């Protein structure tokens, strides 16, 4: 259970540094022009990508890592410290395949072809599940067995509460009462109650990465974590220490046993990785490339310099990204503008399977908690968030509105028909004003609105709100992403029209998340904040089924504002136990209207630049995995 609060690509670079921002501006000013193209955006776009050409066997494809991030953990059992896209999707998944692979083209759904086991078969109304392994092999020739899965689950049972980054109290594996490998190819699992099968597969089984028997060891020799849970802590400790020896990864006999399509042939601590095909790979598509390289970058601008130079510098990037500041404007998320690198690359926007929002603190000790608890106030504030203007303005068209707790891009059947109808709260300052005046507030445009009718009647301000209380809030937001800064300024201006005073407080990303990403009561941190915007919302990875138990259930650690609503809790619990997607629709339609948070636009995750003679890169995965085994160069 548990996806993660995402930090958008552009925020990963030297966000707060004026210097870096200035670099980006210079690069933007110096960009060259090209011709325009079109693309479709259903999560990842299918741009006007080049086609044809004769497939070339071999070659080296170079992939630019996100700025200021490098892999620093190879053991596919990531604690919170290492729980990141660059460690998992960009690195470990190339070597060690998860039991169930999510990402079907641009769709964030189960990919049975790339999964190590057949579809899980549920029985006893969803209380038992049987998993049958396919005929995959490790690179040392041994099969990927059910025992390898049990090995991972036993390790979870031993150390998950402190050392598994996606662990949620009460979640996997606590909710599994029994697990056993009944044969080398069959595994049965009994849960503590009947669960929604889609949810259990997408959010629980999705976390598993089988581990080879050769890893069941400590420094002193073989161990028995596969059969004995009490042995697992020592095994974890050993593998963790081996993973922290970065310089030994490429030659390690432990990390050299892979079941993915690639094996690591070199790695340096700066983050330069070279992968070569795993000749024993038993998956459906064998690598065509002779090598796949990942290269790190200090900033987006440094990466863009290399993209612009192309092969002139001798370090050509084959798959990179365009800094958001250099994005060519487009009129809709289903198109792209003029690619400044069009002579060598084609542009393909990638949207992550995510939602974007910023939390309101219902547990605020500033005195504003009672105001935030009023639905009419949240509705008024949401009416002032002009998602359409932010998308067409600062996002240059590369964004979609967040319509509720379920992502609208890519198109999935998880989004209700109501959600598909678009932003339920289009910009409307008139309605915002009306909501406030009809609830006992004296609205002072460009001043500060105050409560004139305290009380709990339907026309009063609401419980806990005092006579004369003003609508004045502090709003820390993360620096480093230009469109977020512009959005915040715009919201501040919009809010002032109805006398809501937002005191913006730009801070580094880590400071904002430290303040606002956790439930202050549960995490025992200060509740002295009203709102906070880290800018990236939430990405549904590795929990692909967008239920709300992590973000919106009462008492959840990641329920940032401490939102509590018994009907919402009941509806969330239905989504976890009912097999019908209708329960998901009912919940999301309800919560979209309840506004536990303020929905804000979901900006593009990455504007990928792909070299013209490389095929197989698109559609890009909205679950952020990469499959360079599908990539190949062509000659004309």
């Amino acid at each position, binding site marked *: *259970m548990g996806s*993660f*609060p995402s930090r958008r690509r552009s925020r990963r670079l*030297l*966000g707060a540094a004026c*210097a870096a921002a*200035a*670099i980006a501006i*210079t690069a933007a000013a*110096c960009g060259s022009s090209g011709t325009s193209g079109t693309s479709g955006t259903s999560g990842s776009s299918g741009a006007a990508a080049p086609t044809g050409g004769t497939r070339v066997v071999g070659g080296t494809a170079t992939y630019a890592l996100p700025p*200021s991030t490098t892999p*620093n*953990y190879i053991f596919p059992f990531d*604690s*919170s*410290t*290492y*729980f990141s896209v660059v460690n998992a999707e960009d690195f470990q998944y190339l070597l060690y395949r998860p039991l169930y692979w999510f990402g079907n083209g641009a769709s964030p759904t189960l990919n049975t072809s790339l999964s190590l086991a057949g579809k899980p078969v549920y029985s006893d109304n969803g209380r038992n599940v049987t998993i049958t392994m396919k005929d995959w092999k490790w690179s040392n020739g041994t099969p990927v067995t059910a025992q390898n899965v049990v090995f991972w689950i036993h390790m979870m049972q031993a150390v998950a509460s*402190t050392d598994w*980054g*996606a*662990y*949620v*109290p009460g979640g996997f594996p606590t909710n599994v009462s029994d697990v056993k490998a009944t044969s080398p190819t069959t595994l049965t699992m009994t849960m503590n109650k009947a669960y929604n099968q889609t949810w259990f597969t997408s959010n629980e089984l999705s976390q598993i990465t089988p581990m080879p028997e050769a890893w069941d060891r400590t420094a002193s020799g073989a161990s028995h974590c596969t059969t004995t849970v009490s042995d697992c802590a020592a095994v974890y400790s050993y593998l963790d220490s081996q993973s*922290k020896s*970065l310089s030994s990864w490429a030659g390690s006999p432990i990390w050299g046993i892979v079941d993915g399509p690639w094996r690591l042939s070199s790695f*340096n*601590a*700066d983050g330069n990785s070279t992968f070569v095909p795993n000749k024993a790979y038993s998956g459906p598509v064998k690598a065509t490339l002779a090598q796949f390289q990942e*290269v*790190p*970058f*200090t*900033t987006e*601008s*440094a*990466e863009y*310099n*290399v993209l*612009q*130079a192309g092969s*002139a*510098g*001798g*370090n050509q990037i084959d798959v990179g990204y365009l800094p958001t500041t250099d994005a060519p404007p487009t009129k809709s998320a289903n198109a792209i503008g003029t690619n400044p690198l069009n002579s060598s690359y084609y542009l393909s926007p990638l949207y992550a399977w995510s939602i974007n929002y910023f939390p309101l603190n219902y547990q605020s000790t500033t005195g504003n908690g009672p105001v935030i608890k009023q639905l009419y106030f949240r509705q008024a504030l949401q009416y002032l968030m002009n998602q359409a203007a932010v998308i067409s303005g600062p996002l240059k068209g590369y964004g979609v509105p967040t319509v509720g707790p379920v992502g609208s891009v890519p198109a999935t059947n998880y989004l209700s028909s109501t959600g598909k109808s678009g932003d339920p709260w289009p910009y409307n300052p008139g309605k915002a004003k009306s909501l406030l005046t009809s609830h006992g507030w004296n609205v002072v445009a460009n001043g500060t609105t105050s409560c004139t009718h305290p009380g709990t009647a339907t026309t009063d301000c609401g419980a806990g709100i005092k006579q004369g209380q003003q609508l004045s809030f502090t709003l820390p937001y993360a620096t480093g992403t230009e469109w977020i800064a512009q959005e915040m300024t715009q919201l501040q201006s919009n809010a002032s029209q109805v006398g809501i005073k937002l005191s913006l407080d730009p801070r*580094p990303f*880590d*400071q904002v*998340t*430290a303040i606002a*990403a*956790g*439930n202050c009561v*549960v*995490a*025992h941190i200060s509740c002295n904040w009203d709102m906070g915007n*880290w800018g990236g919302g939430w990405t549904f990875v590795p929990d692909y089924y967008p239920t709300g138990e992590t973000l919106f259930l009462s008492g959840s*650690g*990641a329920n*940032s504002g401490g939102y509590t609503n018994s009907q919402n809790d009941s509806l969330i619990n239905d989504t976890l136990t009912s097999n019908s997607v209708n329960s998901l629709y009912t919940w999301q339609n309800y919560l979209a209207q309840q506004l536990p948070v303020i929905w804000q636009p979901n900006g593009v995750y990455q504007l990928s630049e792909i070299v013209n003679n490389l095929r197989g890169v698109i559609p890009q995965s909205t679950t952020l995995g990469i499959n360079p085994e599908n990539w190949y160069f062509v000659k004309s």
Partner: protein
Amino acid sequence: MIGFLIRRILQAAVTVLIVTVIVFFLLRAIPGNVAVAILGPAAYRNPATLAQFNAEYGFDKPWYSQYLLWLGHLLQGNLGFSWTLDQSVASLLGQRLPKTIILVGISTILALIIAVPIGLWQAVRRNKPVDYTFTALSFLFYAAPTFFVGTVLILVFSVKLGWFGPEAPQGGIVSDLTDWRDLVLPVVTLALVTIALFSRYMRSSVLDNISEDYVRTARAKGASRRRVLWRHVMRNSLIPIATLLGLSIPGIFAGALITESVFNYPGMGYLFYQSAQKQDYPVLLGFIIVVAIATVVGSLLADIAYAVLDPRVRYA
């Protein structure tokens, strides 16, 4: 001289110790939550991990207790372990420091080799076109932000002309030295600013010296203009440059964040920035130790250089 050196080394040790106390305190005063910065906001899903982190690294203790713990490790030669880069601080410094020394060191030497003759030439040709030209160029490069100079150089010499690489060498130390085409632009970027600075000092110093009595005396005794310039004026004019060089030594160790960022060269400056963003205290403290030592050593070397350049200076 030996007594002087011993006194300075002892003073340096005390200085470095005081610096660590101040920096340690200031780091703890930075707003935010170290555990969340290191573990990531996802850790909020399981608050037990935050408590475990704080207990494991002593964040549940007063700052002075944490300092004494860190100092104890330092005295045993243990600089600590980076929470975010997953390596020992000593190993990180071992990787990044040589890269920075190569980049900043080469650019400083290059700047020195070019700036000294230019400054001398400008002084000799004072108020002539050549003086005005170099003065204008000095002002231009000294005023221009490094990121701007670097970006322009990349666009012209890499993107348009393809002569040099758009990023610094990406391999190890050996490649830093052998991939000279990739090293040219970052070195030149840094050198241009330094040349502008050094040449201005040199020009000013030569002008001061050229009107001194000893110059007039030497000329009156029949020494040629060239001999006076190179044997007498030049040597005395180098004293302010020695001071500047001494002050540059911490920079050689601390790196050049902007240039490293523009040219994708992860050296010491970039390491410091990364660590500061993530509140990776062990790395920040390791960095501070290195730079503090470089500062006192640089200052000491400058003092020694005075004695070499000016025989009147003697340290008792």
